[in-house]
């Protein structure tokens, strides 16, 4: 028969487990948002090898569209989401047409600048239109309603996000693996010139990728804003950077890699913040990057990445 | 006679595929060797291993008595084993002349400090490097392109540039991977002449992969024939030409041209 002291330890152990568990759930929650952003990011990145720093800003455009439509016109959420996806796609395609297409045959570094410029442009435009002030962003009660699972609480939106990530991953993977356009996408990411010789309209392919990427950006914006509850014109930058990291961590060009990368980042952040002594938790971001570097040392092409096929 | 290069039972596996399965050879100084074989026989893989680009799965390589199995490529190059690539690997964004100078600088002796300070030794040696590079370009007959960017050259000239580049690097042994691919018969003939001259002038050995039988037969003194990762025949050209295994797997009717 356990002494009372032993029983206390038992209790603490259980509590420690639930504590760890709830932090893990926190990580999954954050990770699913990152994954959501990363998946859209990876659509474009995988094909064009374009670090699209404007991705986060397209996300911001989407979110502001939702906000304006719902506050100024009182539209229901589903309608605003549809319109915001459409607008994000338009912005993405315009950026593609104006800033990326003329540079299609240029190097990766060149397009990088162009995407940074688009990002600066969108950010400042948003600042000028909407003021730099943060604004509150509310989801309808049905989506922000909290469900309790034991000690863990999750909102409807959290659950939707989690499911959406995998659903979208599944759909996109299917498209890329099994459809004509998907095949064309992979071909383009491999060798643009040869793709043209196969009769692939690479413009169509790239435009499609941008459209999907931008549309997903708007959706992920909704999820991010829903979680954070505030929005501001510069909100896209950090998630964009994180998505880039996630995509690289998972392996360039791999959608499931991007999702995995997103989750790894989210969980690592949360577990570090939740489990480490508070003296070192300010090193959270540093830790995430150290982790990233360590992972890359072990797998230089990312977790799910494959080595490029070139040989001597 | 001391061997230049001794290869014993070299093997390479790629995830279950035995690309090279026991390659052994002995190369002497100042000789030209041919390495022929079916497509995918493992010829390029052999050269990759000799030059250090790939690590052998088994076997050993000795160069002038020194073991170089699995050594770093730059060390092997410094010993004097230099190679070209089947799929051309030029330094595309720099000029033709600089491509060759990069080869030539393998044994430069000035330090970076001397370079920064612009000391006499630096300037003299730079001039020598340039001289050497220009000579090599002339030797390969592409001196007219010296100032062009390497990637704007026609294919054949790019092939020659690859050879000029390694010639500048004071080679003892050249490993040439299909140097005549993309050259027309006339140019191939020219290449044969050039290679002969080069061998005389530099006193080096050459191991040559080539599918153009005219080139192989008129140049090589000894030939290794490979198929499916293994040597199926070796010997002097006329022996190889008549070898039924080689004819069946590799030459086909072409034997008559050779």
């Amino acid at each position, binding site marked *: 028969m356990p002494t009372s002291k032993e029983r206390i330890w038992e209790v603490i152990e259980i509590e420690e487990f639930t504590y760890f568990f709830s932090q893990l759930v926190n990580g999954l929650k954050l990770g699913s948002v990152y994954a959501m952003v990363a998946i859209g990011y990876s659509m474009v990145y995988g094909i064009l090898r374009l670090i699209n720093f404007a991705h986060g800003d397209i996300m911001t455009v989407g979110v502001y569209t939702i906000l304006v439509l719902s506050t100024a016109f009182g539209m229901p959420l589903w309608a605003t989401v549809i319109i915001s996806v459409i607008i994000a796609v338009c912005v993405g395609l315009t950026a593609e047409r104006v800033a990326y297409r003329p540079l299609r045959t240029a190097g990766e*570094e060149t397009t990088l600048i162009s995407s940074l*410029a*688009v990002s600066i442009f969108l950010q400042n435009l948003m600042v*000028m239109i909407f003021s730099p002030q943060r604004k509150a962003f509310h989801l309808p009660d049905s989506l922000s309603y909290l469900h309790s699972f034991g000690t863990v609480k999750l909102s409807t939106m959290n659950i939707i996000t989690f499911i959406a990530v995998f659903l979208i991953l599944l759909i996109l993977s299917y498209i890329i693996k099994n459809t004509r356009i998907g095949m064309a996408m992979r071909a383009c990411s491999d060798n643009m010139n040869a793709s043209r010789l196969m009769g692939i309209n690479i413009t169509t392919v790239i435009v499609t990728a941008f459209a999907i990427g931008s549309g997903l950006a708007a959706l992920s914006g909704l999820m991010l804003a829903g979680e954070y509850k505030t929005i501001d014109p510069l909100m896209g930058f950090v998630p964009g950077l994180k998505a880039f990291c996630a995509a690289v961590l998972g392996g360039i060009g791999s959608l499931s890699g991007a999702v995995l990368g997103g989750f790894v980042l989210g969980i690592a952040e949360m577990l570090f913040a939740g489990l480490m002594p508070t003296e070192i938790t300010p090193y959270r971001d*540093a830790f995430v990057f150290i982790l990233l570097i360590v992972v890359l040392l072990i797998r230089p092409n990312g977790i799910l990445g494959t080595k490029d096929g070139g040989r001597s | 006679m001391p061997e230049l290069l001794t290869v014993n039972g070299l093997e390479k596996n790629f995830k279950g595929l035995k690309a090279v399965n026991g390659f052994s050879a002995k190369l002497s100084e100042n000789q030209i060797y041919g390495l022929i074989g079916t497509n995918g026989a493992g010829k390029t893989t052999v050269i990759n291993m000799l030059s250090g680009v790939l690590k052998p799965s088994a076997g050993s390589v000795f160069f002038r008595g020194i073991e170089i199995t699995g050594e770093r490529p730059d060390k092997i190059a410094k010993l004097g084993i230099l190679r070209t*690539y089947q799929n051309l690997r030029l330094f595309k964004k*720099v000029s033709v002349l600089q491509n060759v100078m*990069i080869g030539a600088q393998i044994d430069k002796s000035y330090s970076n400090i001397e370079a920064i300070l612009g000391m006499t030794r630096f300037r003299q040696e730079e001039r020598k490097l340039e001289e050497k590079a220009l000579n090599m370009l002339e030797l390969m007959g592409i001196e007219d392109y010296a100032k062009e960017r390497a990637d704007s050259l026609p294919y054949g000239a790019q092939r020659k540039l690859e050879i000029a580049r390694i010639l500048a690097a004071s080679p003892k042994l050249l490993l040439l991977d299909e140097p005549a691919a993309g050259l027309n018969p006339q140019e191939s003939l020219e290449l044969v002449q050039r290679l002969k001259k080069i061998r005389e002038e530099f006193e080096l050995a050459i191991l040559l992969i080539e599918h153009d039988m005219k080139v192989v037969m008129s140049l090589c003194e000894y030939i290794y024939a490979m198929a499916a990762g293994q040597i199926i025949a070796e010997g002097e050209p006329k022996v190889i030409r008549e070898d039924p295994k080689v004819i069946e797997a590799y030459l086909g009717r072409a034997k008559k041209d050779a």
Partner: protein
Amino acid sequence: MRLRDSDLFKLIIFVLLPLAVIVLCGRNSSNYYAGLINLFGINIILVASLNLVNGFSGMFSMGHAAFMAIGAYASAMLTLSAEQKMIAMPGLPEWLISLNLPFPLALLLGGTLAAATALLIGFPVLRFKGHYLSVATIGLIVIVRAVLDNEDQLTNGARGVTGLPDYASTWVIFSTAILCLFILYRLIKSAYGRGLAAMRDDDTAAQTLGIHLTVKKISAFCISAFMAGVAGGLWGHMQSVISAKFFYIDTSFKIVETSIIGGMSSLSGAVVGSFLMTFLPEFLAPLENGATFFGVRLPELYGASNLIIAVLLILIIIFRRQGIMGYSEIILESIFSRRTYSSLLKKSEYINLCIIFKNKAVGLIHLPAEVTGRLSKKFGTDHNKREEIRK
């Protein structure tokens, strides 16, 4: 002969004119114009050193700001007075608190510490290629910032360090910038630089030509970091205030931007890019704060200059993909070649220049054939082929 081939003309445009401006503006280092010029000088160091890694060696680092930060903090630790250090950095060891070094030495040590950091992280990180390396170097910035923000005892945390003595005068900055450019230029034009280019264009081929990749990569990374560290030190002693947030990702991106705009594989590009990115925003600033133009008062439109710069960046990149200078070095060639300076002493150069200007002025009137013929013979435009190639 065209105007831009005239050595004397190059001398005037690329050496004498800038020198005059620097001298004029740099007399009072705390002056606004001097401030801009100083910034220009520091940007040159930053961008040129980044080009060594990104343009000439084909790695793609985005972590330059981290090395700046290290250089800035380290040099500050050496130039601040003991009292200042007691307040801001009480965690420093005793000997370091009392240590006070001359500025150049502090700069060098700051650069050395940055280079040491580069060496340390270079071994693991430089094995990555392309974007993997980019992410890792962004990570370096984040890590450095985290340390600077949280090691309150050594860095004064997020508060930053103030009161750095303003040693970084225009003279110091520009001598350093020119020295850096000179060193980089000589390196690039030697076997070392060609080796880097080889590595950039094809690392496998470079290796089989006897180039030791690791040594090359790490050395380039360290040299670059060293110079960034020095630039950071200069920057700190120019602003007299440093704080981790000034050396963050946005700063780094800006350096990368400038580098690409000017031309990553050209040191002259670093100069041109820095010039553009330093002065363009200043030039556009009046547009935003409701200036009066021809009696019309424009509305205040903060952010407009950023929009314009963004558009310009895209345009430049579209029309000059390799950056403004591409792969060419005309500016530095003019600055660092003896020929340029000897042109000052040659009478023929003046005559040449006069003729060119006269031609321009008169329009497209051609000199009589015999004159041009004589001139070109006399001034030796008729080089033999090898000389031509050499140039």
